[in-house]
């Protein structure tokens, strides 16, 4: 028969294993749904607002979002060219840049893309902030780029037919087409003086973002196939600009470990005294 000590030792080892398994299990569950958000990586020295091919973009993790033909309201469309958008984002604490990349077989003057954000604390319907019947909604802020104008328009909407360009145009955009792929960079200051109209981006906080794309191709009769509400759209997703690194977690961990160590010392001293008494 094994000595009791050895058995206790084995059992303790198993117990520690189980405890570790619980902790590890609890930690891994947390990483399951990473792709549901766009993460704007914090970088130093100006963000590449004019350059969709800048090397800095490789430090931003790409996130892919599926697109659907817009069917929520008239005029609908049943099929669209763009099936997915790949989105990256960077910020430097002052400016934010969002790179939207998608496959489009042809470059057309009417090719266009847009970002949409909720503004303020109220939820807004993803379809241009369409009024909801039981919930008081807020406006949406739309950053719109079109190939032929080669610039961005900063807009607001609160329901169909209310889309309007703002008096304060704060957004810039630059698109580059090559090898069947559009890369469009939208950029703006993280915060603006117009919190009622513009989305305010606070590092560390999640906000809602949606995407829209129009393929500017024409049909046999020379009419645009995708225009206005006939476009590719996404649902709401999350966007977050990285907060500056925060090391306080390490400090708290060190304090807790030191306390645990101290507790061990006190406990063993007590036990030893008790035994010898």
């Amino acid at each position, binding site marked *: 028969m094994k*000595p*009791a*000590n050895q*058995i*206790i*030792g084995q*059992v*303790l080892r*198993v*117990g*520690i294993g*189980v*405890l570790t398994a*619980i*902790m590890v299990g*609890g*930690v891994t569950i*947390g990483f399951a*749904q*990473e792709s549901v958000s766009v*993460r704007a990586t914090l970088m130093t020295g100006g963000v590449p607002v004019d350059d969709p091919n800048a090397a800095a973009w490789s430090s931003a993790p790409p996130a892919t979002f*599926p*697109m*659907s*033909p817009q*069917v*929520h*309201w008239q005029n*609908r469309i*049943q099929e669209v060219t763009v099936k997915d958008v790949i989105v990256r984002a960077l910020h430097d604490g002052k400016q934010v840049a969002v790179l939207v990349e998608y496959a489009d077989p042809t470059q057309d003057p009417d090719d266009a893309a847009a970002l949409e954000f909720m503004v303020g604390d109220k*939820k*807004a*319907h*993803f379809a241009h902030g369409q*009024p*909801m*019947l*039981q*919930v008081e909604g807020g406006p949406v802020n739309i950053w719109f780029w079109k190939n032929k104008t080669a610039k961005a328009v900063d807009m607001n909407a609160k329901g169909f037919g209310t889309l309007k360009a703002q008096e304060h145009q704060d957004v810039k955009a630059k698109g580059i087409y090559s090898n069947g792929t559009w890369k469009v960079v939208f950029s703006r200051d993280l915060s603006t003086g117009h919190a009622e109209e513009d989305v305010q981006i606070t590092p560390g906080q*999640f906000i809602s973002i949606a995407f829209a794309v129009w393929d500017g191709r024409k049909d046999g009769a020379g009419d645009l196939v995708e225009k206005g509400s006939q476009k590719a*759209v996404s*649902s*709401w997703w999350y966007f977050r600009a990285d*907060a500056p690194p925060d090391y306080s*977690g*390490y400090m*708290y961990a*060190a*304090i*807790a*470990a030191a*306390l*645990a*160590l101290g507790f*061990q010392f006190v*406990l*063993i001293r007590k*036990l*030893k005294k008790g*035994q010898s008494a």
Partner: protein
Amino acid sequence: MGALGKPIILMVGMYAFLKFVLPNIPGSAPLPSSLIFLYLLLTASGIVIFETLSGESKDAFWGPIQRFLTGENIGGLQSLRYGVFILFPLLVGWQTYGSTAVSDLPPTESRTIHPAPPGEYTGLSNPVPKTPENIMQGKGFYAAYCSPCHGGNFDGKGPAARGYIPAPANFADPTTIAMLQESYLFWRIKKGGVGLPIEGAPWKSAMPRWEVELPDEWIWKIIMGEYDGAHQSPRTWE
């Protein structure tokens, strides 16, 4: 085994039961780790209370723990003892870090799939006679207006569905229209995504508000066509 062996075996057994056996019992689901932790904590408290009921059992229970901690006469276990002393503060530190570190995860949003309809949409019965012609017509309207998202096979996999979250309902699934009344469908089709109450997250739903485009009679026919096409029946009051 001693008084210490059994409790530890009990703990390990309890963990194995909660983690591997319970989720496999029909009608059950995997337990969240926080709940497993709580159950283990309760088990441990029960064991401590039980083992310290009498002086003898208390000595038998604490004795080996005390010997292990003080390191007296434990022979080969000495290195394990030091291991525990190093590992314990590290685990505490790790847990503290994990609970204070800012989460990288977006906020979780719970969404009620079938929230309660407004009062005026409960208990309505379909005014359209259930004739083969009406069902056929309903299926025609379904094909024109609903199938791009809800699918020609009533499975929620229409060509326009892929980018929408929440995904369009799968009517062939027994947990959708089969557990709802026609009255409920009438409300959902008429008012669409924007008609949902706050717990239904109306800002995310792409479902059109069909009342602005389709007469009520068509909507009732669509409902008939949906049930027939998906081989389901509306829920009735038993």
